[in-house]
């Protein structure tokens, strides 16, 4: 494994890997700079209101351990976003934190 420096300003230009590689994940619209700088914490605005499970990407097939791990991952991410200076990111984080708590209570009971 090797690591190639990629600053935000250069991340959408230039680099081609030395050997044939699978296509990397498509860069988000508005550029990586935009996405990283603004946190872009929550999923894109939903067409309909998503349930807490949908927001947390919890599927019926997931085991309890998988749900727990997913909630922990999301909590770490959105707890961080909750202190962003960007009010929009904070608002999205708040929505996600509420959803995370709802899913926890539904699957593991109230504290």
């Amino acid at each position: 494994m090797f690591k190639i420096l990629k600053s935000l300003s250069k991340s959408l230009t230039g680099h081609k890997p030395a050997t044939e590689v699978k296509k990397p994940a498509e860069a988000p619209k508005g550029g990586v700079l935009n996405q990283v700088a603004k946190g872009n914490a929550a999923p894109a605005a939903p067409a309909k209101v998503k349930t807490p499970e949908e927001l947390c990407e919890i599927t019926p097939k997931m085991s309890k351990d998988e749900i727990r791990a997913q909630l922990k991952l999301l909590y770490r991410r959105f707890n961080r976003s909750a202190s962003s200076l960007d009010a929009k990111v904070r608002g999205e984080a708040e929505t996600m934190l509420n959803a995370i708590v709802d899913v926890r209570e539904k699957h593991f009971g109230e504290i």
Partner: protein
Amino acid sequence: MAEYVGIDLGTTLSGLAYLKPDGNPEIVPNSDGERLTPSVVFFDSHEDVKLVGSAARDGGEPDRTIFQIKRHMDDPEHLVEIDGKKWTPAEISALILSKLKRDCSKICGDITDVVITVPANFNELARKSTIAAAEMAGMKVKRLVNEPTAAAVYYAHSQGVKGRILVYDLGGGTLDTTILEVEGDNIKILTSEGARHLGGSNFDDILLDAYAEQYKKQTGAALFSDERHRRRVLQATEDAKKMLSKLQRVNDTVANDQNSGIARIDLSREHFEKLIRNMLTRTVFLVEQALDSAKLKTSDIDHVVLVGGSTRIPKVKVILEKMFGKVPKSCGNVDECVALGAALFAKKSAKIQEVCNASYGTLAMVYNAKTKEEKLMNSIVIPKNTPIPCSRTQVYQTSEDNERIIEVDITQGEDPDAKYVDVIGRITLDVPAGRPKGCEIAVTFSYDENQRVRALIVDKQSGRSKEVAVSYKGAGVLSDEELKRRSAHLRAMRIE
């Protein structure tokens, strides 16, 4: 002169402690006879005076009263305008610190060097702002120490315990959880996790909404129409919250300032706990995050220690007891132990091993030869929980032929996904022309005792290098000259 002084610059309350000759810390009261000073500043319109503390909190002009400025210490754009002058959060905090310094030095002697506590997850700008505030108030910051660390130092000192301690610090504005090991006088911090905007004032806001809803239901009118009245009701909700830590039920009456009638509020502890359950569940997530971060289980923790006024809420103790299977302990007055611990820390800092509060790294395309996949990732150079001071290096490769300028973004955060970390700075380095891609660049991050970061990049082929102290693009950080000018201005002010 007071040699070892610690200050807890809190969101809602601040306190100063010093170390007595017998080695025990003591809180120094302010000139109003209070052991803790509300972190509130009032700018009087009649006299050129700034009131700090209870007098400021109890005044009636919300437009001229500043509450909870600590929540904005990391916001370079947050300015408070009073009578045409714009005040930064650091300047407002400096007024609070000036009050503490002036009042307390009358009792414990001149105060010059201090240890100040900050939330564990305070970022670089908030830490710099805190140091600037102290300097404006005429004090030199020997060290910044994380609040739960200070509380744990006091707990270990006063209780003589050893083993693994989890500190649950739920204050007015933030929650911090720290796990540490104590062996005699030696303390080793294992990890700290924090949640901003999760504290007693959030519970007050939730209660305020409940009051407003009840008022609307009973009278059909809005409970408040301006900030002045909202503040008054907020104070009533805070009082009710405190009562519910002692009683099962409280009754209150509230009215708006439009003569719309009186509403009776009947609030049970059970209902209050239900209202704040979402917030308390979040605190459980944070405790679990701290345990995961230190790779520990609940059974590995020997003592659970409560710090911060909001831990007086009985449900907090119930939750933690259920989680750990042991009764959580408090170290005396939960509001004072951070300042007391800071005074102890001022003397014992050499025996306390702290860790990085966050991971620091850079953005890199990581190519995996095995899977032949590449991905833009947060490549961590210093992992969270590395003992400090520390320095770590990682070697990267340039991405393009004839690359003339190397750009290294500095990230803060643990997530491997670049979308979920903060980019807190960038270093650029000019390198010679005509080189192929793949040249090696060494990236070194250093982390000092005050949790501040420096970054060094070295082009291994040409030997060219550049080092910077990581700052948030300079925004919100005062120059030395400006700091000196504002310090002189502040020292001439009348602060009561």
